[in-house]
């Protein structure tokens, strides 16, 4: 497939792995964070971790939109669906299994709430148009990759006069949590594998502060194995030369200025929330979006009362430390025992892009690497 097969060439992968070794100082430990959950998934799906020298450590960041969703927001969604019989709550697939304080959307659906999985906000709008006697609430999640899709759908609903379509906006933004991580005393990072598809929308410019203010390299990366390997090589090359620059490995998709049309529609439909709770990271200022005044009529949080309660994570769950990259998933007390993809306690085990699910699904149960096959 075009744009895919070219970036999975094993020979080029081996050559890049050799170049990475050449960039590395054996007396130094390197800690690189991949921001995106999609990168975490690729790293373990393709065994990229096994191609890296022992002293290059990959730390998994908070870029999985499902994993950072606090339990209180799930409870809010369930309350809207369960307490209002006219409501059809719609959401993306992985959201169905995220545990709230007492149940998930899937469990609430089993108890009778009308909760339906959709692939896109446009699907939710179609359900609204097909069910004029019901109210369809779209439980929107995602970073800037997904927010334009929600914005366009709301704009379409307004244009077409669809009055039974509402939205619970949980869209989050990528820059504030990165700044929070960089300010965290828990972490010492050497560089960032920058988000790919988020950058398609926001561009590379918003990440300029990382090299400028924190002196760390960031390279925007694609999701195929050669993309990730090449990005790691580019970061290590910067570190070897003592540089901290912003580079774009994913130029085939990511323009420096992003997608202006997407940014425009987002600015029309959304405005920044003063603060938003991130699982594991706590409240972060101006890190999420809500519907703007012009779209207040579509705001389900204004139409329905929700508990709006902050719910602490289960004591056994260490998703917060995993999301901050402080511990590896296998260091969590319940990883692979009480917490598995089938019966997840924490969000990081639910989404395949969550670090715990990636480790579990690709057999990374401990620090030991599989011996190379001769």
């Amino acid at each position: 497939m075009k744009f895919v097969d070219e970036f999975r060439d094993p020979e080029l992968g081996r050559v890049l792995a050799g170049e990475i070794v050449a960039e590395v100082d054996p007396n130094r430990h390197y800690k690189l964070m991949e921001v995106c959950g999609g990168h975490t998934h690729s790293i373990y799906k393709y065994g990229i971790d096994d191609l890296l020298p022992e002293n290059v450590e990959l730390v998994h960041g908070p870029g999985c939109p499902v994993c950072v969703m606090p339990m209180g927001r799930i409870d809010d969604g369930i309350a809207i669906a369960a307490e209002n019989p006219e409501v059809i709550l719609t959401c993306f697939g992985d959201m169905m299994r995220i545990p709230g304080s007492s149940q998930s959307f899937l469990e609430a659906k089993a108890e009778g709430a009308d909760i339906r999985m959709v692939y896109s906000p446009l699907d939710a709008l179609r359900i609204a148009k097909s069910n004029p006697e019901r109210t369809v609430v779209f439980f929107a999640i995602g970073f800037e990759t997904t927010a334009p899709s929600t914005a366009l759908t709301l704009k379409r609903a307004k244009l077409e006069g669809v009055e039974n379509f509402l939205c619970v906006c949980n869209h989050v933004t990528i820059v504030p949590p990165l700044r929070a991580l960089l300010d965290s005393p828990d972490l010492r990072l050497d560089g960032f594998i920058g988000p790919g598809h988020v950058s398609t929308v926001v561009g590379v410019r918003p990440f300029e502060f990382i090299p400028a203010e924190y002196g760390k390299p960031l390279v925007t990366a694609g999701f195929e194995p050669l993309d990730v390997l090449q990005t790691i090589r580019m970061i290590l090359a910067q570190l070897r030369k003592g540089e901290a620059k912003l580079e774009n490995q994913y130029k085939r998709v990511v323009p420096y200025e992003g997608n202006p049309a997407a940014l425009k529609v987002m600015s029309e439909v959304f405005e920044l929330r003063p603060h938003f709770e991130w699982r594991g990271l706590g409240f972060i200022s101006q890190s999420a979006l809500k519907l703007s005044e012009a779209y207040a009529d579509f705001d389900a949080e204004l139409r329905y009362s929700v508990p709006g309660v902050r719910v602490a994570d289960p004591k056994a769950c260490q998703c917060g430390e995993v999301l901050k990259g402080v511990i590896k998933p296998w260091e969590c007390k319940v990883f692979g025992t009480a917490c598995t993809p089938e019966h997840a306690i924490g969000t990081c085990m639910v989404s395949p892009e969550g670090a715990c699910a990636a480790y579990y699904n690709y057999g990374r149960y401990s620090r030991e690497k599989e011996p190379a096959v001769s």
Partner: protein
Amino acid sequence: MTATPQPLGVDAGHAGVCGTQQEGCITCGDVALPLRVERVDKDRMLALCANDEGQTESVEIALVGAVAEGDELLVHAGTAIAHLSQGPRTPGCEAEEVAPI
């Protein structure tokens, strides 16, 4: 490859994956897929797009400028977020970076 023609704007199935199984939900995962344009409805800013397996879906095209049949779009959550046909055609900057190795 044969894609079943579907009227635009009708749920035409999905070229992506969004489920509750372990393969997971590409929307939640910030995954975007390259899809090829089969038909365009300029008035409604929608395009019927297909993947290599012939699965089709209706895609919002308001964010990617002019779109024609045969173009390749990067699609996330039913919305095209980039026009691949307008970018480097074969491993663009990556080819320049990867080629010397």
